């Protein structure tokens, strides 16, 4: 059989790719951080939007824990504040917009590595909502619910009262879109993105921290950026 002779280049390519793949798994986090610093400014000035398809080039990635991006009628949507409060609330979008607005321009950092710089957020301080509901003595934490029916989150009361934790109805300079968690989502600036629950419709005041969806799946409950989940990102 006169099968070809020669150098086994094919095998070397395959082995080389296996080596690169393993190296990428072990070192990808660092390489990604470096790439992100290079590509983010490019993506920021790209009118075509094509650079958004490049991994880590400064765009949002959309995650949902259910089958699709849930939608609701923002006219009938209500944010229910329940649990250990003096006055349970049922706030409409207009009620929220009538409260003092807080604007933040801050990064969004995902625990899987991507970061979107300088996102514009507008919403109501969570502490203002809690003040209006009146937190009863003995309460220590909050449980957040999403109308997707599956996602949940948690914060301690101290975390929730920070001045960079808001219930946001605007993001990226416009009403929060459905895929970004609209009409209203949480934005917990100093923590990894999974804490910023999308499609928010319920806040329950509790006397203990109830770990949320992602925390039951292995992520840290106290999700400080750069000080949790074994990561060392720059804090927001």
């Amino acid at each position, binding site marked *: 059989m006169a099968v070809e002779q020669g150098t086994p280049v094919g095998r070397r390519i395959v082995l080389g790719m296996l080596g690169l793949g393993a190296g990428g*798994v072990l070192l990808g*986090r660092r390489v990604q951080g470096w790439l992100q610093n290079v590509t983010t400014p490019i993506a920021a000035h790209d009118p075509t939007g094509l650079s958004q398809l490049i991994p880590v080039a400064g765009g949002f990635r*959309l995650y949902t824990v259910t089958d699709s991006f849930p939608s609701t009628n923002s006219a009938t949507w209500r944010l229910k504040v329940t649990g250990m409060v003096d006055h349970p609330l049922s706030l409409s979008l207009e009620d929220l917009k009538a409260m003092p607005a807080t604007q933040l321009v801050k990064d969004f950092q995902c625990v899987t590595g991507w970061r979107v710089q300088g996102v514009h957020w507008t919403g109501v301080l969570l502490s203002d909502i809690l003040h209006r509901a009146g937190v009863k003595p003995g309460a220590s934490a909050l449980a957040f619910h999403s109308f997707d029916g599956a996602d949940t989150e948690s914060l301690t009361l101290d975390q929730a009262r920070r001045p960079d934790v808001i219930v946001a109805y605007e993001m990226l300079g416009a009403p929060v879109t459905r895929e970004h968690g609209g009409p209203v989502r949480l934005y917990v600036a100093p923590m990894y993105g999974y804490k910023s629950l999308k499609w928010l419709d319920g806040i329950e005041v509790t006397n203990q921290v109830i770990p949320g969806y992602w925390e039951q799946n292995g992520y840290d409950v106290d999700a400080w950026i750069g000080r949790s989940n074994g990561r060392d990102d720059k804090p927001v």
Partner: protein
Amino acid sequence: MVATTSRSDTRVLRFDLGERVLHWANAALMLTLLLTGAALYVPQLSEIVKRRHLVEQVHVWAGVLLPVPLLLTVLSGPWGRAFRADARRLNRWNADDRLWLRTRGRDRRARVGKFNAGQKLNAAFVAGAIPVMLATGLIMHFPRHFPLAWRTGATFVHDWVFIALAVVVAGHIVFAVNDPLALRAMFRGWVPESWARRHAPRWLEEDAPTTDG
């Protein structure tokens, strides 16, 4: 196998049935993976496709199944004989391949065997990409069993190899469509001898009649 046609251009067997079945099983799984992967990865497509959980399940199962036809063919005796011989051909590079690659096939002095250097690169890349995608995919699918740094790294590798694979597979399809005789060989098995003389002369003269006889 050399059979005479009515047009005095003899048929040369290029891919036997086992190889064609393997190719199309691979193609179906690979396209499924690329399309479902795109639906999960590109936000604009995610928005259109919905049924995210189903898409994810299809993606994961197609990924797990992808190596199966390949392994079955390699391990099955006579059914995989032609494929194993072609895998050896794809692996080995000689001076003709290097000349072909340097000149992008324009230098006709490069006496190409059954596969040109571009086809060899494509085969090696896909053969390397499959285990890399499978391993990184499994790390992402069973996150609790791996440190977070690995999961981040696996996502990073899976993303970039996905983009490279999409480009390579698209190129493969473009080249195939532009060479209908080569494409039809993947359906009917044979090429006309004139095609083989032009595109794979060394195979025709030294290799084809004896191996495939």
